[in-house]
């Protein structure tokens, strides 16, 4: 995630300002694609802007693995950090809240208020933990569709997301073609590469091999903090790029003091990653991390038949954006999706942004990304 300063790029941009989350509760049993069900579910979400009388101006934003429903504005005057996509969402911004009604929900299986492995199973009165059904990107999207139903929205003006959010976006276009007006998928792909799976599994092993994980049945107040922090540190490296890290940290040292212990924090990059790891464990649940990464690894639009067969269902015009320095979800994986869509005669556009900051480039302010999003949404 990018925590950088977000000064307005265009002077007539406004802010969504103070926002509050809401909870959508469905008391109907929810069936998972891979089998299993839960008796009810909650999705935590935020909205910005106003739903038109015709209910035709809604945009759904899908968040990435470690993101949440809070993508714009602030929750209170004390909160220094704005929503994760604040520069993109707001009055006069590409996702213009004076025109669109924007919905962003915490994903099913998440740990920021939506039902996930850490939620209480009404049947037992205890957290689901590993009894939570196997989760897929299709399940995430299906749960979101219930939330969209609750607004009485038949068709979304657009579905937009990056990374895991990009995969959800593609899944939306496949599973609910009649409900998607257009879609924008950023820094994603049709499936994980072996390398992406390898990194995810190393992260999962860091969690599982932490004795505090306790087979998934840890006390919610404790848990495998070390394992989760290491998983996050390593994953965070995959979100950056060598050039980006070099320019941000280089070999900068924490301080001039040479008398410290040999393996204490010495370099800035170590300090940064340890901070990322330590702060992640305060807001993220280890079992959710296992479930979400596994859902991503299993996501595969080439299956069961082929990419072209899977994408045949898509009817909406789409924009897919790859980033040159993204080595986690490399440009060719993004490109491949559009190539298949074009083979099928679909309306699809592929753009590739030359940005230095790796996978997380889509979370950075860039005039070109601004232009692309703005033009595609308003065409």
């Amino acid at each position, binding site marked *: 995630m990018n925590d950088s300063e977000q000064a307005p790029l265009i002077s007539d941009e406004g802010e969504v300002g103070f926002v509050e989350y809401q909870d959508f509760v469905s008391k109907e049993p929810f069936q998972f694609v891979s089998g299993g069900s839960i008796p009810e579910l909650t999705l935590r979400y935020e909205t910005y802007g106003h739903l038109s009388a015709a209910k035709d101006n809604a945009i759904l934003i899908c968040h990435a693995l470690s993101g949440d429903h809070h993508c714009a504005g602030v929750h209170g005057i004390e909160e220094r950090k704005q929503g994760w996509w604040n520069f993109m969402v707001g009055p006069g911004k590409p996702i213009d809240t004076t025109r669109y009604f924007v919905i962003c929900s915490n994903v099913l299986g998440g740990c920021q208020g939506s039902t996930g492995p850490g939620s209480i199973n009404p049947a037992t009165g205890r957290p689901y933990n590993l009894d939570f059904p196997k989760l897929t990107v299709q399940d995430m999207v299906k749960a979101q569709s219930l939330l969209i139903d609750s607004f009485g929205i038949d068709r979304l003006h657009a579905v937009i997301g990056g990374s895991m959010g990009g995969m959800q976006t593609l899944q939306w276009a496949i599973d609910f073609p009649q409900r998607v007006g257009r879609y924008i998928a950023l820094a994603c792909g049709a499936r994980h590469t072996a390398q992406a799976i390898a990194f995810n599994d190393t992260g999962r092993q860091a969690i599982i091999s932490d004795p505090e994980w306790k087979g998934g049945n840890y006390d919610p107040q404790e848990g495998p903090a070390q394992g989760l922090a290491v998983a996050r540190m390593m994953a965070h490296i995959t979100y950056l790029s060598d050039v980006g890290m070099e320019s941000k940290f280089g070999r900068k040292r924490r301080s001039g003091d040479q008398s410290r212990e040999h393996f204490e924090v010495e370099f800035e990059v170590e300090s940064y990653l340890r901070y990322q790891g330590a702060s992640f464990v305060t807001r993220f649940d280890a079992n959710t991390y296992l479930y979400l990464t596994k859902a991503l690894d299993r996501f595969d639009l080439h299956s069961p038949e082929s990419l072209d067969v899977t994408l045949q269902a898509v009817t909406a*015009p789409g*924009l897919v954006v790859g980033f040159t320095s993204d080595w986690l979800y490399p440009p060719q994986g993004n*490109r*491949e999706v*559009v*190539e298949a869509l*074009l*083979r099928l*005669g*679909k*309306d*699809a*556009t*592929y*753009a*590739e*942004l*030359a940005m230095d900051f790796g996978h997380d480039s889509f979370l950075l302010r860039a005039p*070109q990304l601004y*232009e*692309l999003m703005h*033009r*595609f949404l308003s*065409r």
Partner: protein
Amino acid sequence: MKAIDKKRQADFQIIAHWVNEGDRVLDLGCGRGVLLEYLKQKKSIYGVGVDIDLDKILSCVKRGVPAYQGDIRAMLATFPENAFDRVIFSRTVEQLEDPDAVLAEGLRVGRRVAVGFVNKAFWLNRLNIFLKGRRTVNEVYPKPWYESLPANPFSVAEFEDYCDARRIVIENRVFLSGDWRSECSRFPNLMAGYAIYDLASID
């Protein structure tokens, strides 16, 4: 329309004439998507543009033209035979790295291929080199050599030789005079400023 745009779009009408209603059209080196937008309006085609430059893709997005940012050759390789009814190279071939291979790919992926190019052997180009020892600078190519993209221009005669050598079938050919507007019927290698070919594979 400005005079320069008129000249830039010299081959639009002719290509539009060759394109059938509802065709699947691939425009290689599509620039800002103006030709595809034109064909969409005239012939309700399904069109896709390819360009390497993001700025051009941005313009295509604005026009509502599906576009693919990337390398032409790599992109063509991902399509099966005859995936498109028409593949267009409008002032693109002279900038390709391996024109022979890319044209062959174009002919594989498209049932018909349109190639529009500036005739290097046009009398004015000859005269400029012969008398001034300098290349022609005009409104479409206003920049001096050191501010231009690398280009590999060729003549009508050279293109005919190429089609002959590769046994490419020339279904139609149209030559425009120096103004890129009026048709030129005689001595095209000398008198044509612009040439447009309609090609097909031998089979």
